[in-house]
């Protein structure tokens, strides 16, 4: 058979996978083990992977020692959610336009949108900072939401467009024959049919927005109550004596929402984030 491996090939493959996954997952295991150790056990020499007196202590004490922790987590969640919703409001109509209508300069316009992907927030930070300062928008949620929104749109348009192209045109034509308006057709015919595609775009946008809050919050915000988790924790990371077990516990709790989303919807996410590999 084609996919029949010899025993040594199995050994080779599994050893390779083990090394590969160790590289990918070791930091998470280490973070978890660190979060379970008491501080005294952490600073033991020589290094021990497993120490005595492991406990979930840090997961309780961190709320007291990082008083705004729940605020940071809610902020992260809130910012990512608003970015996703605003992003979808821009993405859905634009993707529909690129998928279904012929108009002058369509392809070059799509190219311009995709080209925005080459920038990150870091490139535009100076003028954005000046603009926000000018309009008094520093230290607001808006300052952290607006740039995030801009950077989920290009990928979203690209993903959703390739999904919409595959929906049969007869659906819309039938709606028009029945006298439905164009906006009505989009909202009542296209969006329901395209829902699986929209779900992929939504998840992709949310994960991106949740992952990329650091630089905007670091630069545009100095009000601690508004900070998202990465910047909230960064203050503790930078100190002389870092309370590592609590920092790791808080980090792990902070990534739980995305890991949760990921485990249940991973099929869609992989499809969404790797789309284009086949088509391009």
């Amino acid at each position, binding site marked *: 058979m084609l996919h029949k491996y010899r025993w040594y090939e199995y050994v080779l493959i599994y050893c390779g996978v083990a090394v590969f996954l160790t590289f990918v997952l070791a930091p998470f295991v280490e973070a978890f083990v660190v979060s379970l150790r008491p501080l005294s056990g952490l600073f033991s020499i020589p290094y021990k992977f497993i120490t005595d007196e492991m406990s979930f202590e840090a997961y309780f004490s961190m709320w007291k020692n990082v008083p705004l922790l729940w605020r940071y987590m809610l902020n992260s969640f809130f910012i990512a959610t608003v970015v996703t919703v605003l992003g979808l409001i821009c993405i859905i109509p634009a993707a529909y336009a690129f998928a279904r209508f012929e108009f002058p300069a369509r392809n070059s316009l799509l190219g311009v949108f995709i080209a925005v992907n080459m920038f990150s927030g870091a490139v535009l930070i100076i003028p954005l900072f000046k603009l926000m300062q000018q309009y008094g928008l520093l230290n607001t949620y808006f300052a952290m939401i607006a740039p995030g929104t801009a950077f989920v749109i290009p990928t979203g348009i690209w993903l959703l467009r390739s999904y919409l192209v595959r929906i049969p045109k007869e659906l819309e034509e039938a709606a028009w024959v029945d006298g439905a308006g164009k906006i009505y057709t989009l909202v009542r015919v296209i969006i329901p049919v395209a829902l699986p595609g929209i779900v992929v775009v939504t998840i992709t946008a949310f994960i991106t927005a949740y992952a990329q809050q650091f630089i905007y919050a670091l630069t545009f915000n100095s009000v601690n109550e508004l900070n998202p988790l990465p910047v909230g924790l960064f203050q503790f990371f930078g100190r002389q004596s870092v309370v590592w077990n609590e920092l790791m516990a808080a980090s792990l709790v902070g990534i739980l929402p995305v890991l949760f*989303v990921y485990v249940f919807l991973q099929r869609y996410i992989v499809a969404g984030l790797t789309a284009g590999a086949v088509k391009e």
Partner: protein
Amino acid sequence: MAHTAKKKDYFPYLLLVPATLVMVAIVAYPLFETFRLSFTNTSMSPKYEYVGLANYEKIMSRRFPEVIARTFYWMGLSVALKMLIGTLGAVLLNAMVPGRALFRILVMPPWVIPIAIGVFIWGWMYNGQFGMLSGMAQRLGILSGPFEFLAYKNSAFMATIVTDVWIGVPMVTLYLLAAMQSISKDLYEAAWVDGASRFYRFRRITLPLIFPSIATMALLSAIATFNSFDIIWILTEGGPRGATTTMIIDTYKTAISRFKYGEGAARTVMIVLFLGSFTFIYFVLLSRLAKRSPNNAA
């Protein structure tokens, strides 16, 4: 299409209004502003003057060329490692062995979590006194004493690259895996019937057919790596003694930490020029690939 027969149809433009507004406000206008500010001496105060090319002269004569070279070195090394490990990972995950579905799920976490949080964990691992890497290396006898990875120029440089690779590898792996799975099984079967070995099939079928995806991914990773900020800022803030100061970090320090917006803007213009040329190459590559396989063109 039925509805395109109408002469003037403003509907598609109407659909593009929200996305365009956001792009103009957040990307296009700020980009234009960056260009304009790069010719000024703007700083904290609202008043500023146009100074011509002074900012560009300044950055060209100082250590900025060194920063550019370092950025390319950092990016080149990181992208090369990502492609190498990613391709090997994709080959392993493509093997038809029990457990492969689980392995594919386990690859993803570094990519979906907030970058900053992944970097906190690496920050601990690089800790010389108590971190995992130094500790393990001492146990295995590679190091004779504690080693502070982020305190020395070379090791800090490599440490930031390793973390960047860790974050980038899942994307590369899964992207190349998707490309490998889109290759028709018939090709492999035909080669197998002809008695081609597994390695031969990989070299003569898999590799040539996924090469376009490797090239695409390498360029996309290059762009992402060039823009990389969180990793270096959290681990070293560009130190020690500038060893990890890339163009993005240098620009951020100049503009945001030292309030020299004008000089920062000139640096940003340089960054945009580099990114623009990467993107140009990317589009040329895409259109070449589209021409070669018209049926698959997106």
